[in-house]
């Protein structure tokens, strides 16, 4: 994290570790507020992120001009926060239900079954299992090496990824999206939470294979 910030010309002015899980973040938010950082990065997930963002909002961090950025925020977290609290939050997502007709159609089916819109984790799991099953179908075998070779050869094309590639280091490279949580006034329907600010090409999001630290085999 620090490495990336510094490589892009930023400066890390401070960091604090919190216990896991934690329900009270006011202490850490106050430390972050006093640090004078422009952006407060939250390298946590789930309930901890939600509590941290709630506290940041309450202590006037966002109102005073500091921005919060979640490194791992899901759509369901935004739902639990409410737009009033979460507005302006920057997040990177691998999937958003309202991207195009294909994602909308698939997500609607998911919604009818579960009563919630899917996050990138759910869409990604569906996509990867389907890709695996398609490789089995194509090769007519369930031998690991045969199926794996086929999975790497076939591009992933579904509602989750377009021309996604399963690389030899095990990463599935696909486009990611930088999103910002909408203001309540610009949200027109239920689960209408995100504005896609920018599409991050897969190569940029996952880094080139030559820099990968994962074993290639």
């Amino acid at each position, binding site marked *: 994290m620090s490495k990336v910030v510094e490589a892009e010309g930023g400066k890390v002015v401070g960091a*604090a*570790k*919190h*216990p896991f*899980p*934690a*329900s*009270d973040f*006011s*202490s*850490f938010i*106050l*430390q972050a*507020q*006093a640090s004078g950082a422009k952006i407060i990065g939250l390298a946590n997930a*789930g*309930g901890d992120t*939600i*509590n941290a963002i*709630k*506290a940041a909002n*309450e*202590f*006037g961090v966002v109102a*005073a001009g500091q921005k919060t950025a979640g490194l791992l925020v*899901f759509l*369901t*977290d935004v*739902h*639990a*926060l*409410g737009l*009033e*609290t979460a507005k302006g939050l920057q997040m990177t997502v691998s999937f958003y239900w309202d991207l195009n007709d294909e994602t909308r159609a698939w997500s609607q089916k998911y919604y009818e079954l579960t009563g*919630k819109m899917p996050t990138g984790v759910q869409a990604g799991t569906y996509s990867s299992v389907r890709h695996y099953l398609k490789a089995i179908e194509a090769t007519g075998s369930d031998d690991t090496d045969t199926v794996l070779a086929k999975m790497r050869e076939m591009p992933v094309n579904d509602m989750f990824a377009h021309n996604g590639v399963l690389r030899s280091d095990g990463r599935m490279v696909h486009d990611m999206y930088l999103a910002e949580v909408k203001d309540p006034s610009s949200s027109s329907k239920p689960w209408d939470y995100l504005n896609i600010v920018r599409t991050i090409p897969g190569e940029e999001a996952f880094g080139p294979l030559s820099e990968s630290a994962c074993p290639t085999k």
Partner: protein
Amino acid sequence: MLTDLLGFPPQVLFGQLLLCLINGAFYAVLSLGLAVIFGLLNIVNFAHGALYMLGAFATVGLTKWLGIGYWGALIFAPIIVGVFGILLERLLLRRLAGVDHLYGLLLTFGLALVIEGTFVKLFGSSGVPYSAPKELIGGVNLGFMFLPWYRGWVVVASLIVCIGTWFLFEKTKIGAYLRAGTENLRLLQAFGVNVPLLTTLAYGYGVALAAFAGVLAAPITQVNPLMGSNLIIVVFAVVVIGGMGSIMGAVITGLSMGVIEGLTKVFWPEASSTVIFVVMAIVLVLRPAGCELTVKCSS
């Protein structure tokens, strides 16, 4: 100049001390309920965290479906959850009177799992949104920190409840019965006091206190089904340190543990979730009955 106190700007340190009191206030209200219940029922109420969670969800529900709003919920949510607690006591806990502590622990812990599991099924584990009432949004800049109105209100409300409970126990007739019950239930019964009713009400009151803390927490923390399970162990430690069943012990320990934990968060954040248990271990070694000097008669 106080510009750099122990390597931390005073802004951070004063702010942290104030936060400590706010967190301590939560611990105080929660451990107060736990202490009341232990005092009279001799049960370590491990369902306390789940009941605290019910208080927060009742607040959300009352606001969303009945339009009662935060201020109404402050009164009605504890009553609703308190009545639920009374049902639990009448239907289940009553049957454990006189048996080993372990059974009470197992039953209440099991109840907590069932209640939390039901809410995960109903609302998902991410929880539901809730924000502070309009009157308490925003805050005041104290110079050394920005104090949200709502956090200030939490301290005031908690102190009112703690003082009220102390008054109830120390200055009223029913309080005298309750204290006598903590000492010796059978003797109290011999004097013609309706002890079963008294224990039911005490449990209901303890549960209502947990729900009250839940209402206070709803705008601050994530209202999710497992919000109480993070807190219950800490609160349990607070009650042990304060002397099981001691009212004042619970309140004072609650506040002071808030301070100790808060300061640890500044100087050694990694240890902040452990520090209360270290204190508990030390207290148990030095004074197995807790800090309170009076040793409770074991039943």
